[in-house]
């Protein structure tokens, strides 16, 4: 393959990364990345409980907490990339999470009925 074609193709990538870079002071970025790591650990714990939960309500609780951590990750990203529009995403996601949990609870109650 032509070398100039390869270089011109992959020269797009650093420009895209530079436009999508994080905003704010470096110290805040470091703290936010550390907290994202902590959230990743917490989500791995939720996934473990989701996979080996003994009963179905355990899995529903784990799924609820996983969705709440997803809301937290979106809030952290709103600070990190400097776009407060993502708070709307937090709002909608929390509402859909509550609807999903309520639907699971109603389904469980209806299944318990003889």
């Amino acid at each position: 393959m032509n070398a100039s074609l390869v270089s011109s193709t992959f020269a797009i990538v650093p420009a895209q990364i530079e436009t999508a870079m994080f905003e704010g002071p470096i110290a805040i970025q470091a703290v936010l990345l550390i907290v994202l790591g902590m959230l990743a650990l917490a989500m791995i714990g939720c996934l473990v409980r989701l996979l080996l939960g003994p009963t179905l309500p355990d899995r529903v609780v784990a799924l609820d907490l996983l969705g709440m951590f997803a809301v937290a990750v979106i809030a952290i990203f709103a600070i990190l990339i400097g776009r407060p529009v993502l708070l709307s995403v937090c709002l909608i996601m929390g509402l859909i999470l509550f609807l999903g949990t309520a639907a699971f609870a109603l389904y469980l109650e209806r299944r318990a009925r003889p």
Partner: protein
Amino acid sequence: MNEVMVTSVTWFNYTLTVLLVLIGGFFSVLAAVGLLRMPDVYTRMQAATKAGTLGVGCMVLAVATHFVTLDVVLESLLVIVMLFITAPIASHLIARAAYFVGSPLWDGTAYDEMRGCYDADSHMLHNCPMPTSDDSVDPRPSLVAGRTSREVMTDEDDEDTTPRRHPDRSRSQAS
């Protein structure tokens, strides 16, 4: 990118943001540890709901202290209020469904207040009778599989029935 004019007010906001985000991350990890380590559906649920709600609320409040404009503050407060209203309702719904399905309580559970209140045939909750030490008739026939020996603790019979608070001891007694 970093040539924003940094005043003391912005440094105060940045410090507040970092503190809130760190508190939120700490409580999120605590919620996951509680979800992993608690022995029961109900205890897992209370750990996950309380610590998780506090952690996510701190992080959304950190968004408000980072961008200090009016619309962002109002929207983050809206998210927090919505979260604090819906999370207890959701956990209450799951707890009720888990009790109806019959997911087992922890072996060290000392007192079950809803024992005898749920009619499995008509799927209704009625008024709870006062707890008695009469275990000959168990009013919850659908939920007693595997844990019929669990006692309702009253004040009269605390000499002969020791409260089984440790799960390993009760498991060794059962086996």
